């Protein structure tokens, strides 16, 4: 009886499992293997080189540059978009008029595909005809080259990413806010707590589960989202705005070095795995206080 039950269970799991193995686990294993091999060209037979690819990686200044960029990118976009998301959620959750329109406005960037968003922002950022510089010209400021200046390119990308992501995270915060009993806030008000104190002592702690969920997703996105790079900067100028995933793409399909690309991919997988593990541990241990 038990055996038959097991068989049935495995049969039910089979479709999902075969897809996972074929398109996730097997390629992952192949990537690990490929990162330990090398060949002069794709036609030549690959030979085992051990950790040699990783030694090259440690000496690769561009690798360190994209890692640094990626960390700055995460640091610049994640807290900002979370803070904005909370602020917007609090705003559209309050008793003001036109909340429906506001919610729609905040959520619109999320509906748009990243490529579309990048094209819109390309127009904003263009050196001469761009919206920002035209506006700046109105008040007599000669606007910078947002995407062409190595000191500004990455920041410009971050601003666009925050714009795109905050609305999405707002939805999670809005949902969480609406599950909180209004009597809690009434009680806090009667007790004489200021708005800031209510936020710090009541609202924010009660939103903590959402914040952790959003934080993990935002971090993963910071490493996973690169579509906009294709439109806006292609990682330039001089890798000033290059990110890890885009560098992997370049290595594999522009420089045609799939072995080194595999090595970079392994690094990325390990980083994402660490984030995912933190998520699992935090989610299971910390947040169930209700």
């Amino acid at each position, binding site marked *: 009886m038990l055996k038959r039950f097991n068989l049935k269970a495995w049969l039910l799991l089979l479709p999902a499992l075969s897809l996972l193995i074929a398109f996730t686990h097997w390629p992952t294993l192949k990537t690990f293997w490929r990162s330990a091999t090398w060949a002069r060209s794709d036609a030549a037979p690959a030979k085992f080189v051990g950790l040699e690819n990783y030694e090259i990686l440690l000496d690769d200044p561009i690798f360190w540059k994209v890692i640094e960029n990626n960390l700055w990118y995460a640091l610049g976009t994640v807290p900002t978009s979370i803070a904005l998301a909370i602020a917007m959620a609090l705003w559209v959750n309050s008793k003001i008029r036109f909340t429906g329109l506001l919610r729609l406005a905040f959520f619109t960037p999320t509906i748009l595909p990243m490529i579309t968003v990048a094209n819109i922002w390309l127009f904003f950022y263009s050196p001469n005809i761009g919206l920002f510089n035209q506006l700046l010209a109105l008040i007599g400021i000669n606007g910078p080259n947002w995407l062409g200046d190595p000191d500004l390119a990455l920041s410009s990308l971050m601003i666009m990413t925050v714009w795109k992501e905050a609305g999405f995270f707002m939805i999670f915060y809005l949902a969480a806010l609406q599950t909180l*009993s209004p*009597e*809690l806030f*009434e*009680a*806090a*008000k*009667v*007790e*004489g*707590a*200021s708005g800031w*104190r209510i936020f710090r*002592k*009541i609202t924010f*702690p*009660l939103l*903590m589960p959402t914040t952790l969920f959003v934080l993990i997703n935002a971090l993963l996105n910071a490493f996973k989202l690169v579509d906009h790079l294709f439109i806006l900067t292609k990682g330039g100028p001089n890798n000033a705005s290059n990110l890890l995933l885009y560098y992997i793409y370049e290595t594999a399909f522009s420089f045609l070095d799939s072995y080194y690309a595999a090595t970079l991919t392994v690094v990325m997988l390990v980083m994402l795995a660490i984030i995912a593990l933190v998520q699992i541990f935090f989610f299971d241990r910390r947040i169930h*206080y*209700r």
Partner: protein
Amino acid sequence: MLKVEGLTRRYGDQTVVDDLSFSVNEGEFVALLGPSGCGKSTSLKMIAGLETPDAGSIELEGKDITDLTPGQRKLAMVFQSYALFPHLKVVDNILFGLQARKVAKDEQQRRLDSVVELVGLQDHLQKKPGQLSGGQCQRVALARAVVAEARLCLMDEPLSNLDAKLRNEMRTEIRSLQQRLGMSVIYVTHDQVEAMSMADRIVLMNDGKIEQIDVPEGLYNKPKTVFTAQFIGNPAMNIIHSDNQCLGIRPEHIEIVEEGRPARVISCDYHGADTIVLAEIGEQGGTTEIIKIRYPGHAMFAAQQSISVHWKLEYEHRF
């Protein structure tokens, strides 16, 4: 100490609180009583500052507080859902207001110690509300209100989430606490037993308006309207229509006697200490009225049995 004058609140074209005026004296326990949706909770929220009145004024200790924020009014409030902060320990829940108002640390401790002893929460201070029973949560909410040492304490149906036994216990407890501390309390309830047993005075509301303000005995003995007469007392007062007048007589004041008004039994409802007898008075075939009679002990009347009823003239109410 509290004076409410002409308080009015409208939602759209519906007036939920209509020209409400009453006052609370120092150390007095006033109940706002009425059926669901009569505007009593809205009234309380306006006094707390959580709702803005469309008209009227609220005066506390001679000062107009109508336009003050809830925090500035320095009142305490107990909510129906207790409104305990789920992520804070009991002790932090109780001290939340004192911390917000920046009361000195040693003063906080002193008040905490006395209130915790008062409501008996000594063993639970480090727990979170989720680990407490309903009765204990109620005590925490009560402690949070008492610790504020506010001029006026507002309570919004604080017992309605408890089971019947606990409700009776807490009723006595809240009342004795209020009397020991000399608190001024406005207590919103739809339960006439709560209002009758706890309050010094009752403001009976119906449909946004005040029906009658009186001490509990006054509401029971001298109801001014049919609504009051029927709302107070259980079972409700019998109303017998005659010509253009209404005659009211309470079920507990009707006796079943040998000689009197003829009546026919419809059914009996045994409650233990007494039996509620449903009967029909008036001429058979003519205009009849159904009345309820509270009969002490266990009555065994068959349906359609003829009985005679009687009541003393002094128990008659005319509307």
